[in-house]
């Protein structure tokens, strides 16, 4: 077996490990869906698992871990935009709790 073949096999093994991890994490999300908890707790737990899943896919399947500059460029822009979208939550909570016709 040549060095290139060894590298190729090592790369494929890593991909399969990440794939199994992603399947397991997706399975955890389905288990959380059947837990006897509030919708808010369910949302929090599922989002935490989804973020880990997304991180694995980005870093290993999309090889973002190979390029430091690109990694920070993608993370900073995407996270900044997504955080910027969260401004609506106080109004969403006001609609359900704070207005006279709430509940």
């Amino acid at each position, binding site marked *: 077996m040549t060095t290139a073949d060894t590298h190729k096999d090592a790369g494929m093994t890593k991909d399969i490990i990440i794939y199994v991890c992603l399947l397991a994490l997706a399975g955890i999300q389905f288990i959380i869906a059947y837990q006897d908890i509030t919708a808010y707790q369910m949302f929090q737990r599922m989002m935490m698992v989804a973020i880990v899943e997304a991180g694995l896919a980005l870093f290993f399947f999309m090889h973002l871990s190979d390029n430091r500059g690109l990694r920070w460029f993608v993370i900073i822009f995407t996270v900044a935009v997504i955080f910027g979208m969260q401004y609506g939550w106080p109004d*969403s909570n006001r609609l*359900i709790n704070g207005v006279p016709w709430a509940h």
Partner: protein
Amino acid sequence: MSQADLSIHGQVSRSEATEIMTAPTFSVPAKKMAMWLFIIADSATFAGCLVAYGFIRNATPNWPRPFHGIGNVALMTFILLTSSLTMLVAVRAAQAADKAKAFLWMMITAGAGILFAILHIREWMRMIDEGATLFHNPWGTPLFSSLFFSITGLHLLHVTGGVVALIAVAIRYQGGRYNADDLEITGLYWHFVDLVWMFVVPLIYLLNLSH
């Protein structure tokens, strides 16, 4: 002083400056960088849709929970995740200059995408049979159906586009017009479609599961 001798701060020659200015950003080839920029923009589109969904779901009392089982969505998730792995196999085969293997695995990935789309449409047909349309559903607020069909429809559109791209790139790669880099760039898009599904499943399906 000639044009060629011009320097920036007396340290960098004109040719060196030109080299710096034309060097690929983050050492990423232009085509790949374009795909990353598209992915950043598209993730903002999906994030916008999902945040709007969260806003409305949070502000609407008695939000419907019409999903009774997870079988179909679990199968769809398994197929999409597996298609990401088959895409990686195709890219590695292309990088090893194994054209036949790369083409085969690209087609398997496209096949998985088609299977996912069929299951997705089956899910839609079941919902439509139960009386759900874009502006109405029998479970309460019509906003549920609007958001369900809009967000899953946008994702399905991306899967369909991805399948077309996979087949087109595979055929061109087979014909020698595209190389391993082009397969890798298509792979980036396919993994992104998979990544979005990781957020669509818990938010749209699992949080609306009836117990």
